């Protein structure tokens, strides 16, 4: 049982029967370890995701046991695979339907930048339609790489300020994508 690591507790003041810390730290900890991902799997990276979700690489130990296929209940949009221009508006609609706070991870070369498909029908990276937090390169990335990307998302989530979604910087980021 020594191999099982329990996540580090945030900095705070501890005493008998109480633990005082910043609200942001506590919420960040809770959010990071219980993300509900929305697997937006379009192509080959989706099969590597299925392998990551499986028992060998096991995404469930990061708190992602329940895959949410409904955007309304998801925190993390995992875009895995090529997004064609035909699919762009749909991806955007799914992103808009998600509630704040939400994070986006672009898995694979095609989602990050169009990949090997420099053709007229492929969107050259999903950051042309939605803001992205973490890019995972690879074609397809190994499950270990996908897990690395997810751990980076967990870092982002843990350290995010509670007020970030209300700041002018974030609002202008969304405006640059024409997302209201």
């Amino acid at each position, binding site marked *: 049982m020594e191999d099982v690591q329990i996540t580090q507790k945030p900095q705070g003041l501890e005493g008998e029967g109480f633990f005082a810390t910043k609200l942001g730290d506590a919420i960040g900890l809770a959010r990071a370890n219980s993300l509900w991902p929305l697997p937006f799997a379009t*192509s080959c990276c989706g099969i590597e995701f299925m392998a990551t979700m499986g028992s060998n690489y096991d995404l469930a130990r990061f708190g992602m046991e329940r895959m949410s296929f409904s955007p309304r209940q998801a925190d993390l949009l995992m875009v895995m695979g090529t997004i064609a221009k035909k699919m762009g508006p749909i991806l955007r609609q799914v992103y808009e339907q998600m509630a704040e706070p939400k994070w986006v991870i672009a898995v694979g070369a095609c989602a990050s930048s169009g990949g090997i498909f420099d053709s007229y029908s492929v969107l050259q990276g999903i950051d042309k339609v939605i803001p992205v937090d973490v890019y995972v390169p690879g074609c397809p990335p190994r499950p270990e790489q996908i897990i690395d990307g997810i751990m980076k998302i967990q870092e982002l989530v843990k350290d995010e300020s509670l007020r970030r979604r209300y700041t002018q910087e974030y609002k202008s980021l969304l405006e640059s994508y024409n997302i209201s």
Partner: protein
Amino acid sequence: MNTTPQLFANDSIDGELATLNLGPTHPATHGIFQNVLKMDGERIISAEQTVGYIHRAFEKIAERRPYNQITPLTDRLNYCSSPINNLGWDMTVEKLIGIEVPKRVDYMRVIIMELARISDHLVCNSVIGVDTGALTGFTYMFQERERIYDIFEGVCGARLTTNIGRIGGFERDFSSDVIKQIQNFLKEFPKRFNEFGNLLNRNRIFMDRVIGAGPISGDRALNYGFTGPNLRAAGVDYDVRVMNPYSSYQDFEFSVPVGESGDTFDRFMVRQEEIYQSLSIIRQALDKMPEGNYHADVPEFYLPPKKDVYRSMEALIYHFKIIMGEMKIPEGEVYFSVEGGNGELGYYLISDGGRTPYRLHFRRPCFIYYQAYPEMIKGSLLSDAILTMSSMNVIAGELDA
């Protein structure tokens, strides 16, 4: 026997039809395609399909890539069994050029293709299980696929999009580790696969669920251009490995499982049995593997060993020309097909003597048989329609190319 008509005969209370949008993003469609269903209560009256959500313009890209750079493109057609696509392309080019590969290469190719076929059928059958609610089979079989991935990694270095094989053979021989892994696989896999079979094959709940879901007759299937397990489940025993044998398939003893009614249960069972047949083929190939070289002696198309490139002028020139894509491909047109995981995967290649194909068209089985889907689900319940779709094994990469 389908007893549902009696149970749901009067389920439309007010006679109004509902329009339901199934997709393009849907957890159960396993791919990006949209179906707009017109439903009468729970029953489907008609369906309208939209595909092309992952159209990546393979055929246009292929006109601008030298022949050895097209192999990674073919990977991404049916990505669950990408070695079959790669080796099919290599064989197409070999047919155009007129190269004969040694017997050993043929047997190695057969082993790799049958492993890829097993991996594809495992995905499809596990996913049929998931859609009926049996998630456990999926997790067990994906563990088995990891072992197949280990074998692929030992041969070519990649798990999923393998870019395996070269024009003229393989990039390296099977190492002793790979042979040991394959032998281990042949020993361990049947036991675990039998567990999966015991879970679902004669499971009464599963059988009640899938028997009668999405049937299609052999005549309609032939008319729709079905190939592969979907056609064999409908009763027609058309298998490209038997009809136009390639890569020494005629040396192997295997049978082609055939179903009767073409419904989901038959498709599931055909795939189950095909996995056993593939295991037998791999066993035969491994036992009878001939000695020889792992590539043909075609220095104009197959890279010379690196140490020769540093010493001999000829090898240097060949190396340069092959890497720059300046291979001397003769003019001509050729159609070559292999038995992919979903059926007859065909390559129609027209070459004008240049360094890139003039026209390369992929005969993609998924694209052709998916058009029959509205006919197959007409009049069935929504849950049966979902099962029919996952049992047809529609891979989005092959659908849209």
